[in-house]
């Protein structure tokens, strides 16, 4: 199936659920239930509760507490670059599901 191109600016404030596919592609586990702790303010919670900004060049996962970035994912010429520099702790797996 093909689509006729009609590029629009795509900059949206969403939540961690919107980054679920992208993060699962990278980590190969379900990530919206993963627990993430902010390196700046210490706020912790499921990635589903974070704030996400998505644009054609990349996705930023931000802290629901202080707004600072936790995870940045950019795509450049086929490369997927993942920066976890805003994260103090990240735990995924069976023990995190409620």
């Amino acid at each position, binding site marked *: *199936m*093909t*689509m*006729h*191109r*009609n*590029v*629009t600016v795509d900059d*949206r*404030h*969403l*939540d*961690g*659920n*919107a980054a*679920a*596919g992208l993060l*699962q*592609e990278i*980590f*190969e*586990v*379900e990530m*919206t*239930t993963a627990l993430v702790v902010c*390196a700046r303010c210490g706020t912790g919670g*499921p*990635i*589903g*509760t974070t704030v996400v900004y998505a644009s054609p060049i990349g996705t930023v996962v931000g802290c629901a507490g202080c707004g600072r970035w936790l995870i940045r994912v950019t795509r450049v010429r086929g490369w997927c670059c993942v920066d*976890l*520099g805003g*994260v*103090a*702790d*990240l*735990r*995924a*797996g*069976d*023990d995190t*599901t409620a």
Partner: protein
Amino acid sequence: MAGAGLPGRLSPRLLWRLATVSAVTAETPDVESIALDVPDWPGHTAGQHVDVRLTAEDGYAAQRAYSIASPPEDPRVTVTVARVRDGEVSAFLLEELRAGDRLELRGPIGGYFTWEASQGGPLLLVAGGSGVVPLMAMGRHRFAAGSDVPVRLLLSSRTEVDIIYREELDRLAGADPTFRVAHTLTRSQPDGWTGYRRRIDRAMLAEVGWPAAEQPRVFVCGPTPLVESVAAALTGLGHDPARVKTERFGPSGE
């Protein structure tokens, strides 16, 4: 980063699958449901979504997440798509897609905003516009699984014709008094309208929802401003924020 750990079971690897459109159904003037046959679909949980990818002739690809509307018991995967302003993907899906067409899809995705009947209730479901889609999957699952979990659904729509799943919700609520549906229309109301006539607020949530003492599981889905105000109002009513799960689809709705 210190302390990163990724133990435990690996999820099924996310594969792009070629799905075939089996039916397209109008829900409102701006919303359609698209039923898909997906080969080797691994099954899903109510509340999960799929990523849909469209590729243009020049190779440009656009990808969007759509909540699954069908319950896990349904072998077909149905998504409900709302037209959004300047939305290239929703415009294509609503205007071009026909039964027999194919599109690329991967999923199911997500585990935070999900509910299974075995988790119990009561349930409070609050939606704005097409935010009702993942909540409808929960409601349909509740009936398909034969669950008796009491459900209260509050749906905010702009006008009467914009109410998604109106007939089905009426039918379900009419068939089972423990499945209650309340509507509010924010832009205009027809003569004789007996529902609410304003944006969802704390007083409405107190009337429609469960007392915090009943410890309901709450799911809120809609545009970001609605989700934020509803979550704040529920916290103000004493609900444990950890039991209030939210999913927002942003100002554009796509």
